[in-house]
């Protein structure tokens, strides 16, 4: 069985640079949105638009119900209770929320303790922790990666065993496609009294998740990479932990009572949702997750793997091509360098042929440095990509290489 999902994504009919049919392979940056999501957004605005959680009238109740129903959908998607789902602006905000709330909750006791991340993290899972370390005297420790692009698990275990307060790790690398054994990392964290955070941005696009099985204290992802809209993200927090954490932003909805002398806060998840939420975004993300749940994820994943493998096989015909990160299952992400050719030149010429890929450091400069690279050319596959896309990618690639000598 093969899913042909293209017709559900109107943008895929586009041509760019005049007459070049679009081949969109920059899915790790953001995915296209199915009609179901666009319809959900339009429907909301045309039928039920009102502020949520501010009670009162019929539209307000509808908006609140839709917003909370989206929370329930996300909860089911992660195998978690709705109360453990906090809506944020995006994955970056979710990680910043955690870093700031941890700073405010544990404060001075973090001095001298370590925050453990890895060499393959996205800037969004590096810089907030650097800021936390600077402000608290905690120490940033970095799990090394092996040459095949996998985490050095022995190093991970060492770092987590020694005075670690928080470990925050990507479930899947946005550059290499590596899937990390976060279950084991979270187990170690639990054993050593550290909090564990998993950055699921790339993983959730291709795989089923159960936060229970992972055993993490928090799990974050953004809407726009998982077929949902921009401006919305998810922070799952273990309920017992959310109850302990200090609020992040302050404002409407997250309060219980405000006087100029003292303000008390609402219970989670609302405690972490200050101000008018992105109601539309939550509803759109709910629609995206429902859409995703309506197709067989295993079939789609297999399909993505076929497309990815066709691309890798074709690339390896070129003897100057080096695939970065070894020979594991790639989950739709391919990063390459070509000897003697700058990735940006390739990206530019492929774009001229309608093929959208990403070149550069992919917001993972430390990983680039570790790999001794200026950048890579990254192609990333989503549910709607076909074998035909793989062939058009390879044709554009070959032609670009020829032009660049």
């Amino acid at each position, binding site marked *: 069985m093969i899913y042909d999902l293209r017709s559900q994504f109107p943008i895929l009919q586009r041509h760019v640079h005049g007459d070049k049919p679009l081949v969109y392979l920059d899915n790790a940056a953001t995915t296209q949105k199915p009609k179901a999501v666009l319809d959900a957004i339009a429907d909301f605005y045309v039928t039920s638009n009102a502020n949520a959680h501010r009670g009162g009238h019929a539209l307000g109740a509808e908006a609140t119900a839709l917003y909370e129903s989206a929370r329930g959908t996300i909860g089911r998607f992660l195998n978690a209770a709705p109360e453990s789902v906090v809506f944020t602006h995006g994955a970056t905000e979710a990680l910043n929320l955690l870093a700031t709330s941890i700073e405010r909750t544990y404060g001075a006791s973090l001095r001298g303790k370590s925050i453990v991340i890895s060499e393959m993290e996205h800037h969004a899972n590096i810089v907030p922790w650097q800021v936390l370390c600077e402000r608290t005297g905690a120490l940033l420790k970095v799990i090394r990666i092996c040459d095949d692009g996998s985490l050095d698990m022995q190093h991970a275990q060492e770092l987590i065993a020694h005075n670690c307060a928080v470990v925050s790790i990507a479930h899947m690398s946005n550059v290499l496609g590596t899937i990390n054994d976060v279950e084991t990392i979270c187990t170690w964290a639990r054993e050593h009294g550290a909090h564990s955070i998993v950055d699921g941005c790339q993983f959730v696009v291709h795989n089923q998740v159960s936060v229970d099985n992972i055993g993490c204290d928090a799990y974050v992802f953004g809407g726009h990479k998982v077929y949902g809209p921009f401006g919305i993200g998810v922070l799952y927090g273990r309920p017992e932990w959310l109850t302990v954490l200090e609020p992040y932003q302050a404002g409407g909805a997250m309060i219980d009572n405000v006087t100029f002398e003292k303000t008390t806060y609402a219970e989670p998840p609302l405690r972490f949702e200050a101000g008018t939420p992105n109601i539309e975004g939550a509803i759109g993300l709910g629609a995206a997750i429902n859409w995703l749940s309506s197709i067989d994820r295993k079939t789609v994943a297999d399909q993505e793997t076929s497309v990815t493998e066709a691309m890798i096989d074709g690339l390896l015909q070129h003897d100057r091509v080096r695939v970065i990160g070894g020979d594991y299952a790639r989950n739709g992400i391919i990063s390459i360098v070509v000897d003697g050719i700058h990735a940006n030149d390739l990206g530019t010429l492929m774009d001229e042929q309608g093929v959208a890929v990403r070149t*550069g450091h992919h917001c993972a400069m430390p990983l680039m440095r570790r790999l001794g690279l200026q950048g890579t050319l990254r192609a990333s596959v989503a549910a709607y990509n076909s074998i035909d896309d793989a062939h058009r990618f390879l044709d554009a690639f070959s032609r670009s290489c020829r032009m660049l000598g």
Partner: protein
Amino acid sequence: MTIIETIEQLAAKLAGLPDWEDRYTEIIAMGKGLPLYPEEFRSDQFKVKGCQSQVWLHPRNEAGVLHFDADSDALIVKGLVALLMNVYSGRTPAEIVASNDDIAKELSLEQHLSPNRANGLASMIKQIRLYALAYSLLKP
């Protein structure tokens, strides 16, 4: 030729190459014609910020006329650098300062080129004009 005239000439040349492949082949060839960049200036100090590739730009003042050494590690960008050298190298600071920022648009380069290059172009022009401004303000 004035800056404007040079730009017009270059624009006409590119417009005469309606096929993207010819256009890029020409740009790449221009890059290959760029003089060797002096290695002693290949440092962060001379890197142009805001380009997706590495671009180095080193200004020289020869009797009130500005010359630039320039290079990039990416071929297409190097071609664009060469193109800008055609426009700006060998001009007085006053001429450069008086020219406007929107050369990339006037050259219709943005519509002939993939967007990230165009972005780098803006950063390079900004840097060139900054040097020119600095020279004209601080001239000995």
